[in-house]
Each structure stands twice: as structure tokens, then as C-alpha cells.
């Protein structure tokens, strides 16, 4: 123990505070998840008995989430968007890591700070700024050339670009941290043994980075999946899950099917987060 805690009562009080905090942390998530199993039309007490209808039932009024077309479509769009954002941001995150760890060029510190900035720009502003630019280009092309550029109107591409714009900062930081720990002598050894630069990259450096790249990809996917603020302004007719859920919450009022989705997302994102932590921890000795 770091601190010589003379006072036992103080330590007990401190422990109680920590326990209270974790109860506070869990309470809303437990509430959101638990009502998915209540056999009632409303997500509220009293408890009417256990059911899995809100997941699997196929008839109204208790339509389960796996039979609800709109929710499933939202889930599908979220997954597609998340996969694209994750792929793009890991790619640029990796090139950024090489650029800032290996590269030497004037203004490096300035550019590094520029790379951090998207993380501290409010998501709403990223959303509107990209919406405005895409619309300006689309309108300009339409006026001058009379061609309608449908992909620059709100829709999946803009959502992907909007999320990619700040998630790349996160992936860059994760992968940069890993590349900084790389031992140069490993590359030199491979070069001395006659490997080409491309071979060294493929067989030595990239495998070393792989845990960080996978972890960064998972985090990128999770951030994309839960994003609302940036997405809100860029969404077209293909609504991802958070937008579909919000619409339903605001317009229709909530039934326990939303709890079922919440349960699914809490467990799913928790598992993915756990995997990303384990991947990074296991191989961090390298």
C-alpha cells in the first residue's frame, strides 16, 4: 500500500465511497438492461415476471428486437458505418504513427497538435461543417455542370466521413504509443540478414503493431457505433441504430424493446471493450 493509512475508519469510509461510486456507475445501465426481461408493455415497475419476448417474439404488440425490421436495419447500417470508419481510421492512424514517430520534417510539433485538435472539437460542429462543405460542392457542381452528386448529400458517406474525421485522432494516438515502444535493433537485425525494407515492414514492424491496430480498430468501431452528435447532422434515409432509437424514444414513447436493444448494446460493447483491453495488455511486453 502506498499510503500509510493510520486511520482505519478513514480507509473504511474511502472504500464505502468507492463502492457507492460503482453502484452509481452501474445503476442506470442495470435499469436500462433489466427491463428488457420484464413481461410488461412498459419499461417500469412492478415486475411482471421474466420473459425473452422483447428479444424473440414475432408479433405485435410485443414485437421483439430481432423481428423489428427498422431496428434491425439500424443495427445493420451502424455495423456497416462502423466497419468502414474503423478500417479507414486504422489505416490513416497507422500512417500518422509512422509519420510522427519516424519522420523528420519542419513544423512537426505544430502538425502533431493539429492532429490532436479534432478530438476537442465538439461533435456537433464537425457535423455541421462537413454538411456545409459537402452541400456547397454538390450545389456548385449542380449549378455549373447540371450534374447531381447524390453521394455528397446526407447519407452513409457523409456519416462515415464525419465520424472518421475525429476517430482518426484516437486511432493515431493508440498506434503512435505502440510504435514508440518499438526496438529499432529488431529492424536493423532483419536488414542485416538481407531482408528488403518491404519485407521488414511486413514481417517485423507490422506484426509488432498488430495488437495496437486491432485495439484501435475496435475502439473506432465502438465510438462510431455510439456516436450521435456528428451523425445527427449527416444522416440521410439510412439511419444507424442510435438515431432510430432516439426517434422512437422521442416520438413513440418507449416500450421494453428499447431495453432489449440497450441490453444487447451494453453487453456487446462491453465485450468488445474487454477484447481490446486484453489484446493490448497481453502483448504490451514486446
Amino acid at each position, binding site marked *: 500500500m502506498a499510503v500509510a493509512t493510520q486511520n482505519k475508519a478513514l480507509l473504511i469510509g474511502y472504500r464505502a465511497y468507492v463502492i457507492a461510486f460503482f453502484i452509481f456507475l452501474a445503476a442506470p445501465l442495470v435499469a436500462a438492461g433489466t427491463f428488457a426481461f420484464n413481461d410488461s408493455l412498459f419499461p417500469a415497475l412492478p415486475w411482471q415476471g421474466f420473459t425473452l419476448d422483447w428479444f424473440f417474439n414475432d408479433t405485435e404488440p410485443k414485437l421483439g428486437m430481432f423481428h423489428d425490421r427498422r431496428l434491425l436495419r439500424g443495427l445493420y447500417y451502424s455495423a456497416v458505418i462502423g466497419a468502414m470508419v474503423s478500417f479507414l481510421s486504422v489505416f490513416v492512424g497507422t500512417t500518422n504513427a509512422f509519420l510522427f514517430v519516424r519522420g523528420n520534417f519542419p513544423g512537426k510539433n505544430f502538425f502533431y497538435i493539429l492532429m490532436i485538435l479534432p478530438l476537442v472539437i*465538439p461533435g456537433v460542429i464537425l457535423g455541421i461543417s462537413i454538411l*456545409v462543405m459537402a452541400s456547397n460542392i454538390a450545389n456548385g457542381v449542380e449549378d455549373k455542370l447540371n450534374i447531381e452528386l447524390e453521394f455528397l448529400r446526407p447519407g452513409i458517406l457523409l456519416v462515415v466521413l464525419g465520424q472518421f474525421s475525429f476517430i482518426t485522432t484516437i486511432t493515431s494516438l493508440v498506434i503512435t504509443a505502440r510504435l514508440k515502444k518499438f526496438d529499432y535493433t529488431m529492424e536493423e537485425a532483419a536488414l542485416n540478414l538481407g531482408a528488403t525494407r518491404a519485407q521488414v515492414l511486413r514481417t517485423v514492424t507490422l506484426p509488432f503493431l498488430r495488437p495496437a491496430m486491432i485495439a484501435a480498430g475496435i475502439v473506432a468501431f465502438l465510438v462510431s457505433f455510439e456516436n450521435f452528435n456528428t451523425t445527427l447532422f449527416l444522416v440521410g434515409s439510412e439511419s444507424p441504430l442510435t438515431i432510430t432509437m432516439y426517434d422512437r424514444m422521442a416520438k413513440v414513447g*418507449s416500450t421494453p424493446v428499447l431495453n432489449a436493444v440497450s441490453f444487447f448494446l451494453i453487453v456487446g460493447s462491453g465485450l468488445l471493450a474487454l477484447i481490446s*483491453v486484453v489484446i493490448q495488455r497481453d502483448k504490451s511486453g514486446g
Partner: protein
Amino acid sequence: MQSDIKRLSLILLFAPFALWLLLLIILPHIGIVALSLREKVAPRVYEFGFGNYIDFIQEPIYWNTLLRTGSMSILVTILALLIGFPIAYYIAKIAGKRSRGALFLLCLIPLWVSDLIRAFGWILLLRETGVVSSFLQDIGLISQPIEFLYNDITVIIGLVYTVILFMIVPLVSTLDGMGDDMIEAGYNLGGSGFTVLRKIILPYAMPGIVSGCIVVFMMTAGSYLTPILLGGKNSSWFTEQIYDQFITRFNWESGAAFGFLLLAFTSLVVWLGLKLTGQTLANTVAKS
């Protein structure tokens, strides 16, 4: 030859970086500044002018909302630090080896749960027909259902809840790197618990504290779901005004001006915070 390859690979690495920042961050932001300086004088006719900003100054609702958003965000940031620091310190320094990892995991796993689900959980707990109100009725403390939603205190609790893990996680990493011997030396030299905290622990943790505060402040000021869902129609959050101008009124010029004002205002607060604590963006957020 060797230097040519180096230069070529540098250019190849710089290209994605430059395209990303230029096309998705720099140009779009210049775009909204330009748009915000445009006034509509007739349908499809625009003129350069500061009209959108003058409207903002002349309408107290607008700037009151911005000031309210800013001051509540500062309050949320302070609360998140005060509540979160002891937790981070416990995880990094007091907990035994085995429970340390478990507790940190408990913080990492719910980190990426959506704001929407967090707010939804609070709604189920706190609304008139919610769990807390029913429970208080059952044990006979209150005779009528109570509505705990739609007030500022609930909004603040919900916001602290949404952002606090982004304060705790970087703080745990920072405090983890501090040697126990530094703290012990402080005690051995006769320092009280408070002196050790003030003279040794806080200065060491300062980059992590500032980094957590910046991220938490920006997330709070830019949040949309939590204030709206927990505060209801009258939550008066500035992002709601931006949404209103853009989507409901379709007044993009004024929405762009509001967006720029939010960015300028929050950047000013962050800059002041960095100046007051003597930190820079590079040694705080960049390290987390």
C-alpha cells in the same frame, strides 16, 4: 538514392494526414466561418456582413443559452474531477494488485456505452413512474409519485455520469506512473496527508488532470442527448440552438455562426485553463 527513398516515403506518409486534416477539418471550418458571414438579403441573394453575429448579440435568449451551457459545463467538469480523482487514486494507489485490475476494467468496459442508453437508464430510474419514485412510495417515504426529471440538478447529474469515466481513465494511467516512493518520501519528511496531496501528488498528476478536464469540458459543452432527454424542452443547451437553426428553421447562415461561436467560446475556456495551470495541449491531451 537513400535520401530520395526517405523523402518519397515521407511524402507518402504525409499525404493521408494532409488530406484528412485539410478536407475534413480545415476546409469545412473555413466553410462555416464563411457561411456565417453571409446575410440573406432576398431569396437566393446573399451579401457579406456580420448580421448573424449581431442577431446573436441582440437576442438575449441566444447568448444566455451559450453562457448557461458554458457555466454548467465548467461546473460539470469540476464535479467530475472532484468525484473522479479519489476513485482514480484508489484504483492506482490504494487497491491491492488484484482488485486494481478488476476495478480498472469496471471503468473501461462501460466507457463506450452510448449517451442515449445512459440517459435512457436515468429516465427509467427518475421519471414519475420510475424506479426511484415507486420505491420511495413502497417504503412509505412519499405518498404521491415525484417527477425527478426535467430540472437542472438531474441534467448535471446525468452529464457528470456521462463524462466521468473520461476523467478517471486518464487519471489512473497518470497516477499509475507515479512511484510509491515519492509519496512515502513525502510522509517520511513529515508531511501531512494534505501536504503530500498538494505538494507531491497533484503536481505530478497535473497533466492528467488538465487532459481529463479538457476532454470532459468539450464533451459536456458539445453534448446534445443528455440535456435534451433529461432536461426536457426547456433544457436550453446551446447545441440544441444549433440543431434548431440548421434542421428546424433551415437557417444555415445563423446555425454556422452559432457553431463558430460555440467553438470559439469553448476554445477560449480551454486556452484559459491551459494558461492558468501552465500546461500545453501537447503535454496533456496528446499524451492520453
